[in-house]
C-alpha cells in the first residue's frame, strides 16, 4: 500500500511517528477480539492442513474392518466411519481440500475479476457497459446453482469444483473493483497523477489499485468463507473431491446414511466446516471495521 494513497492520521515532521495505513489497520484489528479469535483459529487450521501427515493419528484412507463405525474412544478420538477409517485423520486431511478450494477459487475470482473491474471502472463507456451487463447476468444466476451447473458440465473433480466456484465468484470482484475505481478516480491525487502525464496503466496500477485493496481484502476473506461452504456443498453432492480422498462435504454425505447407528460421523465434519467458515466471517467483519476510515 502506498503511503501517499491514503490521508495520514498523524502529521508530524518526524517520519518515525507517521503511521502507515497498514499499521493503523493492524492496530485497529488487534483490538477486535472476534477478529483475533478468527485469525488464530484460521492459523491453527492452516497449520493442521500443512502438517496433516505429521499430526494425523492414522492414514485417512486406511480401512479397518475390525473398527467399522466405532464411537469416539481413546483409540479413535472422533470415532470411525462406515469402513473403519479414523474420522480425526479424515477431518485433519479434509482441511486441505476446503482451504485449497477456498483460497484457489477466490484467487481465480480475483485474478479475473480485479483486472476486468479495473478496466470497466477506468475505461468507462462501451467497455464498462459490456463488462457490467455480463456481470449483472452472472450475478442473476444463483451462486450455488451456477456452480453446480458448471461443475456438472466440466465433470466431477476438486479442480473443476474450484474452477466452477472461482468463475461464479468472479462477478462479485468485478462489481466491487469497478465501484471502488469509480469513487477513487475522481480523487485529487489521481487528477494530479494524470496532470503530470502518467500513462493510463501507471495511474490504474500505481495510484488506483492500492486504494481498492482494502475493500478487496475484506471481500476476499468473506468470499473464502462462502467458497468453503460451496466446495463442501459440491463435495456433498459428489461433484467435488472424489473418494477415497477426504473432504468434509463428502464425509457428511456418507454420514447421512448412518445417522441412526453412527451420528458422530455427521458431527465432526460439519463442526469443522462451521468453525472454519465462522473464523473467516469473524476475520472479514473485523477487517471491514479496521479498514473503515470512519472507525477509530
Amino acid at each position, binding site marked *: 500500500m502506498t503511503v501517499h494513497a491514503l490521508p495520514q492520521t498523524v502529521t508530524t515532521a518526524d517520519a518515525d511517528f507517521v503511521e502507515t495505513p497498514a499499521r493503523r489497520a493492524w492496530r485497529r484489528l488487534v483490538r477486535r477480539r472476534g477478529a483475533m479469535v478468527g485469525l488464530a483459529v484460521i492459523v491453527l487450521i492452516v497449520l493442521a492442513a500443512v502438517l496433516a501427515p505429521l499430526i494425523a493419528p492414522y492414514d485417512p484412507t486406511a480401512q479397518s474392518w475390525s473398527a467399522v463405525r466405532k464411537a469416539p474412544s481413546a483409540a479413535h478420538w472422533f470415532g470411525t466411519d462406515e469402513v473403519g477409517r479414523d474420522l480425526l485423520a479424515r477431518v485433519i486431511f479434509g482441511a486441505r481440500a476446503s482451504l485449497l478450494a477456498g483460497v484457489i477459487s477466490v484467487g481465480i475470482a480475483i485474478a479475473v475479476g480485479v483486472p476486468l473491474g479495473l478496466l470497466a471502472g477506468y475505461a468507462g463507456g462501451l467497455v464498462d457497459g459490456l463488462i457490467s451487463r455480463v456481470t449483472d*447476468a452472472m450475478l*442473476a444466476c444463483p451462486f*450455488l446453482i451456477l456452480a453446480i451447473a458448471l461443475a456438472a*458440465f466440466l465433470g466431477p473433480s476438486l479442480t473443476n469444483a474450484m474452477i466452477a466456484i472461482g468463475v461464479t465468484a468472479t462477478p462479485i470482484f468485478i462489481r466491487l473493483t469497478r465501484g471502488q475505481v469509480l469513487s477513487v478516480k475522481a480523487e485529487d491525487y489521481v487528477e494530479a497523477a494524470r496532470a503530470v502525464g502518467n500513462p493510463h496503466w501507471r495511474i490504474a496500477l500505481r495510484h488506483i489499485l492500492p486504494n481498492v485493496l482494502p475493500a478487496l481484502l475484506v471481500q476476499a476473506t468473506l468470499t473464502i468463507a462462502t467458497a468453503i461452504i460451496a466446495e463442501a456443498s459440491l463435495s456433498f*453432492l459428489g461433484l467435488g473431491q472424489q473418494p477415497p480422498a477426504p473432504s468434509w462435504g463428502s464425509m*457428511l454425505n456418507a454420514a447421512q446414511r448412518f445417522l441412526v447407528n453412527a451420528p458422530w460421523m455427521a458431527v465432526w465434519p460439519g463442526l469443522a466446516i*462451521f468453525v472454519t467458515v465462522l473464523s473467516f466471517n469473524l476475520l472479514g467483519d473485523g477487517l471491514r471495521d479496521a479498514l473503515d476510515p470512519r472507525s477509530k
Partner: protein
Amino acid sequence: MLTLIGKRLVQLLPTLFFVSVIIFSLQQLLPGDPAMIMAGEDKDPETIEQIRRQYRLDRAIPVQYLYWVKGVVTGDLGESMRLKEPVTRLILQKLPVTLQLATMAMVIALLIGVTAGIVSAVKRDTWVDYAVNVLSLWGISTPNFWLGIMLIFLFAVTLGWLPASGYVSPWVDWRQSLATTIMPAFVLGNAIAGVIMRHTRSAMLQALQSDYVRTARAKGLEERTVVLKHAMRNALTPVITLGALEFGTLLSGAVLTEQIFTIPGFGKLIVDAVFNRDYAVVQGVVLVTATTYIALNLLADVGYILVNPRLRE
C-alpha cells in the same frame, strides 16, 4: 413512475440477453462431442448422427443459439433426455413445491431476523445485542446441509416428532404437509435470518438516531410507540427489499436442503439432472432461477420506489 419502471425493464434486456448466452454456453463446456455424450451407451454412428440432426448440433453455434432462444421465448426449454418429458412441464410440476418451501423459509427468516434485529438495536451494547450478533454469525456460517442432518437426527431419529424425509402437498393434508416441510424451511430460513438480522439492526440504529425519533421522544411518546411506530416503519423498508433479493439465495439453498429431506422440488430436479447428464433440464432450471431472480430484483426496485416518495420524482 411508469416511465421509471419502463426504463428499468429496458435496462434488463441486455442482462437477460447475457444470461441466455451464459446458459447456452454451458453446453459448449462439455468435453468432447455433445451428441456422443447424449447417445450414452449407444455408440451407433447412425444414432449419433440422428441426435446431431434432432438437436441441430450440426449447425453453427450462433444458429444453435438462435434456435434455443426461439424455443425459450415460446416456452419450449427442450426435452428431458432421461424422463422423455418437456423440461417446461417438469419445471412447472416441481416449482410449486420449492415455492412453498421458500415462502415458509422467508416467513421464518423475517420473524427471527426482524425481531432479533430490532431487539438488538434497542438493547445496543448489552448482552442481548451480543447474543443476537452471535446468533446472526451462527446463521451465516452454518452449512445448511449440516444443520439439516443434525435436525433430522434430533427431531426424527432421537425424538421421533417429525418425519425424516418426504413431502405431502398442503392440498392433500395440510398438517402432514407442515410436518414434512417445517424442518427444511427452518434450515433454509436460518441462513437468511442471519443476514436480515444484521440489516435490521443497522437500519434500526440509524432510524433511532434520526431527528424524527428525537422529536417523537421529545413529544413524550412512550418508548414502545417510538420504536414500533416511528423507527421500525422506516427501518423496515430496505429490509423488505433485501428479503425479495434473498429469495434467489433460497432457491440456491433449496438444492441441498431438498436433497437431504428428499423433497421432490426444483433443487432435487437439478441434482438428479446433473447426475443423469440431463443437460436440457440443468439449463432450464438455471434459466428459470435466473429469470426469477431478475424479476424479484425488479419488484424490489419498484417496491422501493413505491414506498419512498422521494424516489418517485
